[in-house]
């Protein structure tokens, strides 16, 4: 996809001649415009604010119906939620905020359930390896949260409040205002609580008992601040920060109806970003982004002694990084190049790793687009997307990550009743890698022994697909992708003598499958239908020991099939008070997941359905959006992860007021 230099008109209606140069947006994974027919990769764009219903509150909610994504949900609002793409682990998807890394260096994970999206506008999911742009850990793909503020000239205040089952409450207050003609600020603050004492069914053979979930409560505070300064007609500076603080129960897996745990988990996370952009000429631009990311996590169990001490683990990470990019385009954008570099320093401390550990990284990358147009052909054009990145990471050899993508677009045509038929074929191939986490390198408690000699995991990714869209009683869009990933040197924890375990580069895994996506929107956007299907085969292909019977078995918790369907109806009114009324029915299918490496045990497949009613009202100058949602409407009893029962039917009601 082309690196794009954007010089936009402001959203201001009062002065349409004002120009705001935006930061360079690398279209490969950051571009907010629709990605069909523009990228060699399979990209899903999720809008967080559809102006009809209140905003999606957390990242797991936003991603749960996206093709190719499996959310490993450890149940309830407080349960940890991690992501899996293309049969790989949670540590193989890189989570970004405005293109900058926020995935944990400590354990490689991001808990999607506690990342607030109140300041976000979109989430862009790029499936497949992206180390050529982002360096380490972007092996299965990336998830990029974009928070570009929708400033206008008016002061705006908003309040969102939610109540729901199991004592759930959530409130968020946000405000934004112009301070001067060239300077705007905005921010928000929110709190969330829930008891999560939901009933679930415990099955043991022919005996089923109803049990109440315990020690699953959650208390959270979160906030954000953003500002934008137009320095002159060619340059701007924007600052964005976000923070969350959570304290929650962390119940064990349920293995008896009487099981009670007392573990507690606390997370504190803060990110500050400053982005400067400068338009050098009509086709050239420069941007620099600086970020500092602080993360703290504490896990304690008052019932668990290790060597005489109670289990009370904590870690603190601080990651400071800077990324600079220069982009240039010519010949009306047919040839584009982005060259950049980044540097980071990450430090870690905690009582479960050696003290004073840190890691420095330097990266340099170059991406490009070359487009060749055709006049007298069914082809509209062919584009090539080469990219190369070099990473120099402390205590590791330099790593090169090449990538090549191709996009073949066909001319738009009409076929019978079908109008505006567009199609394209795309393909990409890349080499990617994941660096060992601090835990894997330096862990020292509870029997775990870190291995400082660990090498990066390496993978080769390939995908090929087609995009089709046309008009026939509305707009139809179809996207289909075949993917394959081959990973070696995969890190696995093995016995190290006594009660100790240590990680080693041992395994070779392969995954392949299909991601298919279809959407239809009727004329006037009254009806919408979205359907996606993912199949994934992910297998270990190396022996852990001679005669290992788990070779060529499906990896744990990788469903071979997933699908989602949602159908929505929205009625717009010209009335003074009621502007829209809508409803949406969604159902998701997750196929069975193996829970033992020899595939002898599994969790059954399940359907989870929800129904949502929403409305938008305008009362004087106050816009009101409401949503009533029934989740797990058919009251299914199921588990995503063994031993972590999901809530049965539950409800929530959200009101959002904007002034």
């Amino acid at each position: 996809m082309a690196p794009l230099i954007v010089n936009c008109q402001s959203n201001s209606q009062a002065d349409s001649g004002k120009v705001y140069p935006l930061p360079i947006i690398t279209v490969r994974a950051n571009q907010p415009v629709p990605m069909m027919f523009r990228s060699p990769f399979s990209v899903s764009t999720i809008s967080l604010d559809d102006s009809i219903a209140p905003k999606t509150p957390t990242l797991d909610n936003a991603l749960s119906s996206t093709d190719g994504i499996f959310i490993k949900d450890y149940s309830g609002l407080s349960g940890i939620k991690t992501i899996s793409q293309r049969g790989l682990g949670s540590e193989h998807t890189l989570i970004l905020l405005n293109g900058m890394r926020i995935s944990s260096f400590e354990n490689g994970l991001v808990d999607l359930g506690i990342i607030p999206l109140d300041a976000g506008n979109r989430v862009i999911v790029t499936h497949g390896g992206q180390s050529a742009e982002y360096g380490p850990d972007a092996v299965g793909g990336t998830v990029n949260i974009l928070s570009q503020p929708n400033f206008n000239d008016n002061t705006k205040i908003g309040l969102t409040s939610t109540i729901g089952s199991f004592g759930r409450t959530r409130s968020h207050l946000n405000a934004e205002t112009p301070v001067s003609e060239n300077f705007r600020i905005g921010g928000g603050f929110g709190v969330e609580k829930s008891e999560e004492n939901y009933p679930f069914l415990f099955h043991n053979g022919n005996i089923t008992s109803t049990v109440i979930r315990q020690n699953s409560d959650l208390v959270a505070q979160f906030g954000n601040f953003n500002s934008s300064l137009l320095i002159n007609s060619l340059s701007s500076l924007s600052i964005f920060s976000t923070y969350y603080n959570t304290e929650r129960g962390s119940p064990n897996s349920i293995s008896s109806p009487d099981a009670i745990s007392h573990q507690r988990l606390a997370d504190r996370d803060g990110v500050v970003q400053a982005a400067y952009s400068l338009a050098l000429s009509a086709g050239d631009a420069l941007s620099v982004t600086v970020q500092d990311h602080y993360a703290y996590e504490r896990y304690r169990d008052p019932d668990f002694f290790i060597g005489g001490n109670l289990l009370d683990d904590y870690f603190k990470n601080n990651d400071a990084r800077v990324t600079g990019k220069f982009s240039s385009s010519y010949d009306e954008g047919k040839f584009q190049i982005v060259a950049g570099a980044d540097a980071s320093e990450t430090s870690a401390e905690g009582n479960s790793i050696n003290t004073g550990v840190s890691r420095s990284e330097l990266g340099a990358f170059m991406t490009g687009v070359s487009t060749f147009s055709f006049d007298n052909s069914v082809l509209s054009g062919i584009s090539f997307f080469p990219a190369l990145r070099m990473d120099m990471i402390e205590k590791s050899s330099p790593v090169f990550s090449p990538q090549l993508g191709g996009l073949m677009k066909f001319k738009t045509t009409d076929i019978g009743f079908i109008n505006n038929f567009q199609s394209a074929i795309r393909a990409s191939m890349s080499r990617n890698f994941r660096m060992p986490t601090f835990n894997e390198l330096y862990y020292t408690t509870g029997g775990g022994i870190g291995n400082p000699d660990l090498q990066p995991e390496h993978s080769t990714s390939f995908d090929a697909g087609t995009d089709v869209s046309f008009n026939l009683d509305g707009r139809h869009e179809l996207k289909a992708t075949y993917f394959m990933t081959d990973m070696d040197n995969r890190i696995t924890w093995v016995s190290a003598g006594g009660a100790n375990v240590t990680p080693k580069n041992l395994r070779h895994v392969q995954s392949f499958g299909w991601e298919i996506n279809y959407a239809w929107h009727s004329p006037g956007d009254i009806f919408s239908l979205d359907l996606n299907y993912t199949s994934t085969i992910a297998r270990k292909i190396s022996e852990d020991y001679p005669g290992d019977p788990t070779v060529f078995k499906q990896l744990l918790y990788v469903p071979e099939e997933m699908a989602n369907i949602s159908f929505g109806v929205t009625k717009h009114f010209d009335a003074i008070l009621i502007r829209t009324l809508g409803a949406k029915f969604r159902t998701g299918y997750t196929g069975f997941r193996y829970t033992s490496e020899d595939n002898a045990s599994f969790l059954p497949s399940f359907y989870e359905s929800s129904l949502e009613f929403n409305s938008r009202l305008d009362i004087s100058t106050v816009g009101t959006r409401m949503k009533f949602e029934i989740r797990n409407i058919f009251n299914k009893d199921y588990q995503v992860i063994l031993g972590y029962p999901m809530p049965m039917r539950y409800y929530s009601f959200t009101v959002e007021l904007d002034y």
Partner: protein
Amino acid sequence: MMKRLLLITLALWSLLGCKKDPITSYTQNTVPGGITRTVYVLNEGMFGHYADSVSARLTLYDYNTKTVYKDIFENANNGQHLGDTGDDMVLAGDRLFILMSNSKAITILHIPDYKLVNTASFQSGSPHDLMYDAVRHRLFFTNFTGNTITVLNDTSLSTVKEIQVGSNPEGLAIRNDKLFVCNSGFGADSTLSVINLNTLSVDTTLVLSMGPTSATVSSDGHIVIACAGNFTVNGSVYAIDPVTLAKTSKIQFSTNLFFNSGSITADTSGNVFVIGTVPNTYTGGPIHKINLAAGLVFLNYCQGVFYGLSVNRYTNELFIADAKNFTGDGVISIINPDGTIKEVFSAQRGPSVFAFRWQ
């Protein structure tokens, strides 16, 4: 258009789940009456699994007919499962006490119908090793993460007392009104608590080597302790006089020993058998044989990767369990006193503990 789309969508949706969920069930078999020589094998099952095809199981082996009966508990109790991670088992008369560590429960089965008699759950501590005091009719189990020993009434399973011991207690042995408790500390502790069975209090604490994990009583009445070691200290075996509490011998190994409370046993001829380790595996190692009186060690007496062992005191045969890395059914080998293999039979997932009933 919308109707056509919905119909097509429903048709496509109905194709979902064409890949059907696998089907699993337990082995249906009936244990006949009149078995006079019974070997019980407690199969640990996979950690975190409480009621599926790889969770803990009880297997019965008819020593006379060489017949194996699987899923004993399920067949006798309407498909109900034992629970999560079967870590220990004690046979006392016509009762079988089974300890489930991750379910935190003790279950009593009646022999020979294997019906559930009683079960008790405990809310914390991760129970690991079980011992029966036949004189005082009490059960003892170690709370591996709670640093205590819980004392139970052997019928009601009500708690009589909690006794504070060292870190992460594992193996237990009883001799001369004393209960010996291995305090493993995950390899960081090195002590052995000695509890007076009359006062139910710790009389003394002995210092051994790192990671005391399993205990047995030798044919001459000594308490024999296997210390697994840790990342920097190798394993060792101690023999302790149960009266004077003196350490009468120590065998130092050049590798770790297996960190498992069921990794040591003794025969009736003065020999002790202990499980070693194999690099990179969680599921045990070769079996070493020690003749304490002669001070002789036979390394790799049984070559392979073994997870559990026990001597049948009725026949002096050594029963050893290969868990096959918890991938599929485990295999039990019966070793004659001369070291030759007498018989091999299949057990279930993660065999680890034995009990013998000879009538």
